[in-house]
């Protein structure tokens, strides 16, 4: 091994992460140095910083910057940039939705933003992780922040319970992943993905891969590794739930695509059945259990499990189109989910509860919020002309092209099931009469989140071409690897 020589390293590849580290430290230092400073300004500082980093990443994307660092541990390519931007976009919206919510928290309001940024940093590294060890480390890195964030409402027993559950299962997950990695290393003698791609499949690799995937399955919350999701979602502060429901899943998909398709794509026949099973179980279980939910956050948690099942259809297809549709689906899911959670935050700021019952008669209290939530839920259900519809159609098309009829049929049946529970919420919003008819006033920050999500959902549905193009160019590295 050659000694590390900084002169040979193109640090501009790492620049977004370095800036992010700086930003996180600055936010923390300001909070320490000036305890009297308004926490709101910390939020805006974080958002401005992330906005600038996003711009840099957009520039990288446009100029097709790519390269490897640290002997191939760290890869910057279009796929990585896509997921970094994805995580940053989600985080900016989450910070914006937290601005008002943070007043509920009694302690460490400033550290809240630091922890968010710290977690994002981990997820940005996840998007670039290019060998098994860095995959493991970045996964851990991104989860640390969450352990604290989930328990942020420290006087609420549900939040503490959520934190403990999340921690224990998180540790178990790490153990599984590291065990899987050790099996793969034992079978092949390498941890670099580029080397592994050239290895012949062996039993050790397949079992190791299975363990790694089970670990990642925990992260994305696929059935049967979903057990932590509803409780953690319910207990965590709602902006954290919103964050948890989208950003780590996106980053985990960056790793899944890299490991499963880029590296072990040649062994498709060995793992497809596994993904097909996870996908069908997630969709069916998530949707059926969601019907019984009385709490909005739990409902969105189960709906999220079902959505992951849908996304896995694209992975099971294992084609270029499948990968494109995964990226597109994640985008549609991002806007609809963050938007829906923003409305939940607004309503629960008033009532301090997250029950579906509190949404009763929302249309009479705030027509704008009611209409927005309607749009978000319908997008999650997959109704045109919204982003969720195009995403579902895209992913089903990829699956039909690969003859995955079982998954497509299960998926289509599930669309109908999911329509039921989303419409039950719609019924509450539009048909039920409110218990407390006072109009709801929305703070500008949350209103901005709702507007951005609304525009996102509608734009993805009405004119998806730029987003499809974006997904297609982000998956350029699969061009010669996977069938169309």
């Amino acid at each position: 091994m050659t000694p590390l020589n900084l002169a040979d390293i193109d640090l501009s590849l790492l620049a977004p992460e370095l800036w992010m580290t700086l930003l996180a430290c600055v936010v923390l230092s300001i909070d320490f140095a000036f305890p009297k400073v308004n926490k709101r300004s910390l939020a805006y500082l974080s958002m401005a910083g992330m906005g600038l980093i996003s711009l840099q990443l957009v520039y990288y994307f446009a100029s097709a910057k790519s390269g490897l660092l640290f002997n191939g541990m760290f890869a910057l390519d279009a796929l990585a940039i896509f997921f970094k931007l994805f995580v940053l976009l989600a985080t900016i919206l989450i910070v914006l939705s937290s601005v008002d919510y943070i007043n509920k928290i009694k302690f460490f309001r400033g550290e809240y933003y630091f922890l968010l940024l710290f977690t994002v940093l981990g997820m940005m590294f996840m998007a670039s992780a290019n060998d098994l060890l860095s995959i493991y480390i970045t996964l851990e890195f991104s989860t640390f922040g969450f352990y604290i964030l989930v328990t942020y409402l420290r006087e609420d027993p549900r939040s503490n319970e959520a934190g403990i559950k999340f921690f224990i299962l998180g540790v178990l997950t790490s153990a599984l992943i590291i065990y899987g990695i050790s099996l793969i290393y034992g079978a092949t003698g390498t941890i670099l993905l580029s080397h592994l791609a050239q290895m012949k499949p062996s039993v050790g690799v397949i079992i190791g891969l299975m363990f790694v995937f089970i670990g990642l399955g925990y992260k994305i919350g696929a059935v049967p590794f979903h057990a932590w999701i509803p409780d953690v979602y319910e207990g965590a502060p709602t902006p954290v739930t919103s964050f948890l429901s989208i950003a780590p899943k996106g980053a985990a998909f960056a790793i899944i695509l890299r490991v499963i398709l880029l590296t072990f794509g040649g062994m498709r026949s060995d793992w497809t059945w596994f993904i097909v099973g996870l996908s069908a179980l997630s969709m069916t279980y998530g949707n059926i259990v969601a019907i019984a939910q009385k709490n909005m956050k739990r409902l969105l948690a189960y709906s999220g499990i079902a959505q992951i099942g849908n996304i896995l259809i694209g992975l099971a297809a294992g084609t270029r189109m499948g990968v494109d549709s995964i990226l597109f689906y994640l985008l549609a899911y991002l806007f609809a989910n963050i938007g829906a959670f923003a409305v939940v935050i607004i309503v629960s700021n008033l009532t301090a509860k997250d029950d579906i019952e509190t949404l009763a008669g929302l249309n009479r209290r705030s027509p704008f919020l009611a209409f927005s939530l309607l749009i978000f839920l319908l997008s999650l259900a997959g109704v045109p002309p919204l982003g969720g519809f195009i995403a579902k159609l895209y992913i089903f098309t990829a699956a039909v092209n690969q003859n995955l009829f079982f998954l497509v049929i299960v998926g289509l049946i599930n669309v109908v099931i999911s329509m039921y529970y989303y419409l039950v919420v719609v019924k509450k919003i539009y048909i039920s009469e409110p218990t407390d008819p006072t109009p709801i006033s929305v703070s500008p920050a949350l209103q901005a989140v709702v507007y951005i999500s609304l525009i996102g959902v509608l734009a993805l549905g009405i004119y998806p071409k730029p987003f499809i193009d974006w997904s297609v160019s982000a998956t350029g590295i699969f061009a010669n690897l996977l069938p169309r």
Partner: protein
Amino acid sequence: MSGERNKEELMTQYLLSIILFSLFFGGTVLMFIPNSRPMLVRGVAVGASSISLLASFYLLYAFDYQQGGFQFVERYQWAPNIGISFYLGVDGIAVPLVLASSILIFAGIFVSWHIQDRTKEFYIFLLILAAATVGVYVSLDLFFLYFFYEMSVIPMYLLIGVWGSHTKNYLESKDPNKDSPRFFFNFTANSKEYAAMKLVLFLSAGAMVALLGILLIYSRSGIYSFDLIALSKVPEGQYGKMLVSVIWLLVFFGFASIAPLWPMHSWSPVGHASAPAATSMLHAGVLMKLGHFSIIRVAFFLFPEATREWMPLAALLCIGSIVYGGLVALFQRDTKYVIGYSSSSHMGYIFLGMAALNTISLTGAVLYMFAHALATGLLFAMAGWVYDQTHTRDIPSLGGLSKKMPFVTGAFIVAVAASFGLPLTVNFVGELMIVVGSWEVYPKTTIIAVLGICVTLCYLFLMMRGVFFGEMKAAYAHVRDATPWHDRLPLILMLACSLYYGIFPSRFIHVIRSGVIPLIDRIHKIAPLLSQAGQAGGF
């Protein structure tokens, strides 16, 4: 001079976009108008729908039936990677249906003039519903056909759920569990929420079946495109014998569920009955025809051979629609249930006309779709009027309303006459063509269908007698007739169209034939010119 011509060309070039987007645009504008200004809300809705109405009439007369084929074609790239383009165009089959949608949305806006609760939202969803149905009729891209088809379902949920009405049995039921799922099969004591949910779930399930068929078409045609014209050039052999049948059945049953073909009809009367008047009008008038139209556009157009092979199935099932719908309507005591079941029964005639697969019967079927839209629209509009005035739909508790509402009664009588196909109404022309055309192919079914017309006569007369004639209840002394212009306009419009095109149907028949003949020729594999000469004497 040249400027004027340019203007006309521009208008012709974008005619379909104008019809479609004036409705969407109207709905979007309404979102920014506060609910505290109901007249402005109504004004915008009327403005949007009158643009599309005028443009649709223009479409009927500007359509060149001698040229035939798809006209007023517009095409824009939308998502080239997946082979989707925004591709609009109409043939002779779509033109009358576009017109029917425009007439009904225009009339529907006036019919719901008296809605007080959340007027704005009501009109937004109504306009989106109408726009989506128009979208299906003008789409030449399979993706957009499905896109608009699905889009029409959700507004129905809100329109029924928020502005609909419960059935009498539900309101009178003392059972504390009347909202529990145990009541799922209790068809006559349902709440509006139940009706709305049932409708959406049935239609979504049907849509998913059709979607599977559409995705199979997309991926197995080998051209990876949703372009209907391009797909129609793909020979059926490309898919394989077995797969063609599977796709055909998926598409047929998927779309037939909205039509609704027996035995997939049970959502329809329940939905009709609970919906507010304007929604029932659009639902029965044009939403149900989406099924027939999509079957013609997708199954007939892309798979002529499979159509020839499988369409007898529809001829069999349509007996179920005609007989079952008619007999159940005979025993209903709720005005809207009677009209709802009568609609399901009449949809059977359209299936019969389609199943015979000859020019006369298919032309008749398409004409009947238009005719039925007007007649049922009228019936629902007036059932809605009676409900608004009396707050009941229960026939036995009504009676003698003709003394109080002579205009509505007069219009109702004409609507009933149109509904069972009295000569001089456009329904008669359509019905006659269906019967004449299908007699050669399915004589026994045709006899049943004609007997079904007698049943129609019975239940419509029973309802008319029960509601408008006989002793008047003292409780209804306060009811009033439709006297203001905005209450009469929609009724007069629909009546006028029904009678005018009943007396002068030739333009319609020419237009429809220009779309039907190439389709039938494809199905029977006849050279186009020959058949035109052979069948020209037919009508």
